[in-house]
């Protein structure tokens, strides 16, 4: 969908919610708006643009520029329309002789201290100062040249008021010479992002925008490069480097970010087939106009020189790659897959789909396994992140999904954040939560590490329960103990929405003294008082919400913790009402979608078991083939079966399993044992070192489709440019399927969605027409909910009665001891994403060039480790080296690292322990020893050599 006009007009001040409607007239036009709306916004609703400079609907009104003055009958003087609220019967005039004179005077002053290099200015054609000079009819500037901020030199010599450009941030430039000190950037940093990195220093003529201290530039300051300041800047003071380089865009394509599970809507500003910038959409229902450094700026990987654009094959993984035609590559892949099945049986091959791919792509890949391979060997990377969410929430509530939309956070009184780090992992949601915390909502964090959310400026109550990794179930169950023991539960809710007898049995279970905070303190290291206070606060808040991440799921008891969380919410009636709920923060853009689309080996799309006859017969009818009623292999099972010699072929789309799955040696041995590994990706990733066929993929900018975010929101992805590799990814899967006799004939992803809707009850109403009309919809979307379902379980649970499961703590087998006395846990950092395949190929490396091991000062001192030293991290699975950072953010006995860089290979040390229900790996707990080291381990050096050898490509004949 191409949009050739500016999509959303700036209404000047933010929308206001009110039950009371006020009617007024603006320039003779009657208009009705919610009480509390500004006169400026009311005028905008009436179609009248009042001139303005400091006002924008991204931030609250400030009233500093005096350009937006109006006259109101019965009111004295000329009030600023941005800060004046409407009242019933008000009569507003936006243009009178007096106002015109004031505005010209104001503009004349602004322009007297602004350079007039408009023709060569990067904001030329997209400058609000320029527009306003035109709007108020400014024709002359009568001031004599004098003191200014913009002239580098005057006749007397260098101008002491002039400051050079700040180009420290790789994505945007700050040019103080063009600043009009409207303070929009400062307010956006506070109100929208919540970072408070910017300030206005000095007074009067000395007022300047500053990134913190005098010594700070934008990069060294607290700035997180979200881009909010750049977005609101009315001039060229803060502007994207790409706009400086290319020029202004000429059309806009709406799309959805391909990074985390927040699923921000973006306007891709294009010039021809070149992206000029990505700007978050004001009408995006997940992000409401905000973005983070990844979505906003880190899209350069899509055109990075490392991208491979031609198919390649090789006989053996020790051979160099050979560039071939699509025809040859697909023929080679198809014949090897069929040969493998002929030699080793129908179940000897399978697929892995990716949470980075669209719903339509994922649907086709699982269909390839089920309908063309004839088995159910399909799994997705959600296996290694949120599979316990699927199992746990389905058991408790009846659906494998989060209960609320992100807007709901605006109404929460308390947020309980467990095993998640929203300001780094889900930054736009993190900002929305921070905004609510600044308004007075309370925060409880259960996490081994002191996350940044706890340092939110101006927030209310903030409790941190720094538990020992692996004790989530004990701590959350102990909170339930307190709630039941102190009778803080919501009896009416439980009687109505759950089974009372079941609750009584559960109450008996949690009241066991072993769940008391004093007992749990012994194993979790969380002070009993803290557990009690947290439980009381959660129960006392009128509307309490729970947000959780992989710190919950990636444990041997991941599914149990999800159920324990569900228990808490049911106990306190925190479900079915805005501001409450149980909300998993999904790691990747389409984790929810890839699960919905039947990627799991035991479930068809819509979470229906493969043994369910009715569903199987439906797919047999639609697909025209016999289907297997037996569950297939999960990813870890595939590796085990490969080492047993029975699983020998894999088609892996958009997923780097060598880097992202635990116990790397186990994964690489398994892959090395296979006869045919097909990697379909943008880059020659780590997995491709073990592949026989490489199929070049397309980026999200090059294809149509949909992503489903953490709120079950199905968002459109629209093609902004021609695929550089020649095909959209769904077309490549279709070509492979057809080589294997699939007879597929889709001509556009909308036809794939039509098949999904036809066969999946929760998607029955989803069509591209609807998505184009509504922007997005949240499933279930069907006859009962034609526009989707923002909140689930309002009138009762999907499964009927909510189910209280008994959540007994079972210690993980991964225990510390004399050899491995520390616990390693892992996480994500703001500027990098997942295994880094995308973000490492952008300027985001300016913030995080390598993975660092965080270690407590006492543990460091015991080992003779100093800040910045190379350290060796060893577990029973393997060892790696990285640099140490000494910090009290982690407790003694706990070390922490990220996993964004392949040379670090954090997963060389993680083990094959996994969640009891879903085999989701226990990434978050590994017993390790840390010791000083001289540099990379032997394994790392060998790996690098092997990796270089495996990526050789034979020169083509023409060269």
């Amino acid at each position, binding site marked *: 969908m191409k949009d050739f006009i500016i999509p959303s007009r700036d209404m000047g001040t933010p929308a206001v919610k009110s039950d009371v409607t006020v009617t007024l007239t603006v320039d003779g036009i009657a208009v009705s708006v919610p009480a509390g709306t500004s006169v400026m916004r009311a005028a905008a609703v009436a179609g009248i643009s009042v001139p303005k400079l400091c006002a924008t609907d991204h931030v609250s009104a400030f009233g500093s520029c005096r350009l937006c003055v109006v006259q109101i009958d019965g009111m004295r003087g000329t009030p600023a329309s941005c800060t004046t609220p409407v009242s019933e019967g008000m009569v507003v005039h936006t243009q009178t002789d007096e106002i015109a004179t004031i505005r010209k005077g104001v503009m004349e002053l602004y322009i007297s201290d602004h350079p007039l290099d408009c023709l060569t200015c990067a904001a030329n054609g997209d400058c609000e100062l320029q527009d306003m000079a035109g709007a108020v009819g400014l024709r002359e500037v009568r001031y004599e040249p004098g003191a200014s901020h913009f002239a580098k030199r005057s006749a007397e010599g260098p101008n002491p008021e002039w400051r050079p450009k700040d180009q420290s941030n790789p994505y945007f430039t700050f040019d103080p010479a063009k600043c009009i000190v409207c303070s929009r950037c400062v307010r956006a940093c506070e109100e929208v992002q919540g970072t408070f990195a910017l300030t206005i220093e000095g007074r009067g003529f000395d007022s300047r925008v500053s990134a913190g201290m005098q010594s700070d530039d934008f990069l060294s300051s607290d700035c997180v490069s979200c881009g909010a300041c750049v977005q609101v800047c009315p001039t060229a003071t803060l502007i994207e480097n790409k706009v400086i380089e290319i020029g202004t865009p000429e059309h806009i394509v709406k799309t959805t970010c391909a990074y985390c599970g927040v699923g921000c809507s973006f306007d891709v500003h294009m010039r021809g087939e070149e992206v000029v910038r990505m700007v978050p959409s004001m009408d995006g229902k997940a992000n409401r106009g905000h973005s983070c450094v990844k979505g906003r700026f880190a899209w350069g990987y899509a055109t990075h020189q490392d991208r491979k654009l031609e198919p390649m094959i090789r006989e053996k993984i020790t051979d160099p790659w050979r560039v071939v035609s699509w025809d040859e590559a697909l023929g080679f892949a198809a014949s090897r897959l069929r040969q493998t099945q002929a030699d080793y049986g129908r179940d000897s091959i399978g697929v892995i789909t990716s949470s980075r791919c669209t719903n339509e792509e994922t649907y086709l890949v699982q269909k390839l396994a089920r309908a063309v391979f004839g088995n159910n060997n399909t799994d997705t990377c959600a296996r290694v992140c949120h599979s316990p969410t699927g199992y746990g929430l389905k058991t408790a509530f009846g659906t494998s999904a989060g209960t609320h939309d992100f807007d709901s956070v605006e109404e929460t009184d308390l947020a309980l954040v467990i095993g998640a780090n929203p300001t780094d992992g889900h930054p736009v949601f993190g900002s929305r939560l921070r905004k609510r915390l600044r308004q007075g909502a309370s925060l409880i964090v259960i996490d081994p590490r002191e996350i940044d959310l706890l340092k939110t400026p101006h927030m209310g109550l903030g409790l941190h329960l720094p538990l020992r990794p692996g004790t989530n179930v004990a701590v959350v169950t102990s909170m339930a103990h307190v709630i039941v023991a102190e009778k803080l539960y919501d009896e009416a809710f439980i009687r109505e929405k759950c089974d009372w007898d079941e609750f009584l049995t559960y109450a008996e279970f949690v009241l066991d003294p072993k769940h008391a905070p004093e007992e749990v303190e012994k194993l979790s290291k969380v002070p009993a008082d803290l557990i009690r206070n947290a439980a009381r606060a959660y129960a006392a808040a009128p509307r309490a919400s729970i947000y959780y991440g992989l710190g919950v799921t990636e444990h041997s008891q991941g599914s149990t913790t999800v159920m324990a969380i569900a228990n808490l919410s049911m106990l306190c009636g925190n479900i079915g009402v805005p501001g409450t709920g149980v909300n998993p923060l999904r790691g990747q853009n389409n984790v929810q979608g890839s699960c919905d689309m039947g990627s799991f080996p035991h479930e068809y799309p819509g979470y229906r078991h493969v043994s369910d006859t009715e569903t199987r017969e439906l797919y047999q009818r639609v697909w025209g083939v016999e289907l297997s009623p037996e569950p297939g292999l*999960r990813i870890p099972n595939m590796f085990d079966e490969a080492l047993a010699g029975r699983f020998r072929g894999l088609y892996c789309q958009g997923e780097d399993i060598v880097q992202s799955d635990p116990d790397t040696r186990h994964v690489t041995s398994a892959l090395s044992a296979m006869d045919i590994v097909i990697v379909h990706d943008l880059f020659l990733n780590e997995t491709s070192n073990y592949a026989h066929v490489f199929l070049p993929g397309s980026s999200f900018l090059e294809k149509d489709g949909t992503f489903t975010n953490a709120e079950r929101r199905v968002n459109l992805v629209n093609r902004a440019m021609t695929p550089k590799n020649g095909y959209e990814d769904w077309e490549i899967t279709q070509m492979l399927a057809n080589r294997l006799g699939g007879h597929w004939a889709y001509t556009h992803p909308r036809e794939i969605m039509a098949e999904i809707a036809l066969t999946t009850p929760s998607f029955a109403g989803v069509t591209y027409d609807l998505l184009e009309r509504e922007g997005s919809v949240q499933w279930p979307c069907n006859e009962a909910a034609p526009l989707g379902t923002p909140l689930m379980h309002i009138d009762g649970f999907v499964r009927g009665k909510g189910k209280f499961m008994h959540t007994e703590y079972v210690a993980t087998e991964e225990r510390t001891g004399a050899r491995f006395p520390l616990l390693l846990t892992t996480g994500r950092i703001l500027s990098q994403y997942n295994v880094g395949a995308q973000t490492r190929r952008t300027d985001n490396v300016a913030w995080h060039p390598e993975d660092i091991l965080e270690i407590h000062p006492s543990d460091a001192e015991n080992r003779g480790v100093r800040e910045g030293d190379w350290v060796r991290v060893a577990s029973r699975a393997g060892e790696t080296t990285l640099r140490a950072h000494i910090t009290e953010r982690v407790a003694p006995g706990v070390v922490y690292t990220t996993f964004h860089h392949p040379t670090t290979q954090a997963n060389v040390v993680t083990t094959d322990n996994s969640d*009891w229900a879903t085999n989701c790996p226990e990434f978050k707990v590994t017993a390790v020893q840390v010791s000083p080291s001289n540099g990379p381990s032997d394994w790392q050096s060998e790996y690098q050599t092997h990796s270089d050898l495996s990526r050789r490509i034979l020169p083509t004949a023409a060269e």
Partner: protein
Amino acid sequence: MHYDTMKLIRMAGQMADFFRNQPDRPAAEAVAEHINSNWAPQMRSDFLDLIASGAEADPIVRDAAAFVQLPAA
């Protein structure tokens, strides 16, 4: 055995640890149902072989074997 199939016993043991605390029904049946709906036939058959050959396992896991089904040949 080609590889560490004891892993299957370990995984079933983890399930037993969960289901032994649930009041609704016998833990062995719940473990077996979880295995039937989540494990591929080959894994189920390896598991049954291990139990039949006397592998050391939690009593619930051993009892579960009676309810683990294999596809009709």
